[in-house]
């Protein structure tokens, strides 16, 4: 029998980004697996690209790290050239170009989000390199399949920060409950204009207590 440890390291994942009134919230689980083996139970899938532009990664761990690293380098160079922070759209397109041009060999999908002049913007980059700007929220990764309908139902435009935070935590925990590739802790990142990005961390036991196991 082949050992799980020989399988590729995968970010079977739940990631999402949601807009709220006056900002943006990113959420992700923290499980990285090889087959059934959890090779990292504290992974950070919300990666800063430049200043307050973030990307949520899903797909192959190695591939997404490489692409995100390339995008960081590219954006750093570009910001020197521009003399200011590049736009979220530019950041997203750098990811998409890399994902698209190397689609034969890469297994990546991203949610790239940030604020441009106080306006929240979310871009989904699908496996294969299709890019979509999302009006309100985006979810990706294996776990997203289980909670997209939940988000469709519960999300309303102009929710408050607290409401959106509760919704995201609820959605990610539900995905972690059903999707065996998602698990561990929940990481959040809150982006608001003229405020430092706020990283929030929910312990695995807290997440576990939210599972609807007794129903």
């Amino acid at each position: 029998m082949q050992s799980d440890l020989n399988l590729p390291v995968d970010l079977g994942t739940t990631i999402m980004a949601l807009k709220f009134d006056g900002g943006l919230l990113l959420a992700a689980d923290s499980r990285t697996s090889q087959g059934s083996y959890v090779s990292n139970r504290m992974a950070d899938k919300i990666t800063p690209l430049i200043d307050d532009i973030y990307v949520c990664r899903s797909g192959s761990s190695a591939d997404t790290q490489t692409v995100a690293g390339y995008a960081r380098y590219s954006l750093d160079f570009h910001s020197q050239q521009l003399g200011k922070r590049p736009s979220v759209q530019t950041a997203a397109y750098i990811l998409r170009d890399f994902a698209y041009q190397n689609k034969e060999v890469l297994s990546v999908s991203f949610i790239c989000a940030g604020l441009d002049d106080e306006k929240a913007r979310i871009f989904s980059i699908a496996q294969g390199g299709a890019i979509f700007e999302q009006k309100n929220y985006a979810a990706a990764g294996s776990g997203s399949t289980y909670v997209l309908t939940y988000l469709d139902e519960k999300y309303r435009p102009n929710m408050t920060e607290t409401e959106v935070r509760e919704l995201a935590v609820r959605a990610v925990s539900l995905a972690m409950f059903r999707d065996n590739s998602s698990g561990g802790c929940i990481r959040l990142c809150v982006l608001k204009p003229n405020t430092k990005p706020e990283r929030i961390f929910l312990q695995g036991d807290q997440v576990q207590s939210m599972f609807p196991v007794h129903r």
Partner: protein
Amino acid sequence: MSGSDYDASTSTFSNDGRIFQVEYAQKATNHAGTSIGIKCIDGVVLACENFPKSVLLVPHSQSRVTPISYSIGVVSSGLNADGRHVSNYARDQANSYKKNYHSDIPVGLLADQLSLYFQQYTQFGSYRPIGVSTIIGGYDGKPQLYSLDPNAELYGYKGVAIGKGKTHARTALEQLPFATITCEQAVKEAAKILYGLTHEEERIWEIEMGWITEANNWVFETVPAPILKAAEDEAKKWLEERDA
């Protein structure tokens, strides 16, 4: 006139620290048809005077005011062929920026890249300096105007003139109300400035203008013929009154 032995190449300084080839290139632009750029509150106007080489040429068939992208245009004074080479290079730069970053190149960045390109031609022995001065006008969130000389010096301007009439034209430009001027007004002013330059009797010359305006969604276009004609008529009248 001659730089005595040091004027044949850009690879050697003269005894008093000059590179004569670069200065000669500047002379080439100083003898060429005048070009003007005016930054307005609602856009940028680029204008120039052309001297068709023959009466047999179709009017307005040689153009110096050219678009680089939807929102950027340039006009060059000097060797026309060098000017076309420069605008071609600028188009490549603007296009590759768009390919890489999926947004329009900031005008200042394009001007900067052009200036680096010009500089190369002042440094290497096998090159001759580029024989044009170039005005770069465009929009990248706000109207922008730059001017670049063969020595690769680049400056941003509210209003600028290059070519043989530049001294006179710059003096005239200094009188313009840049805080309030609109493109429509700038077209008239540019026509006046160009008509105000001394032109040899009997020599055919024509005005060419392009602009990037809010009214045209910040897309470059040649100034529509009726507007240009009206501006020229007004300038002619103004000239007659002045000379009367």
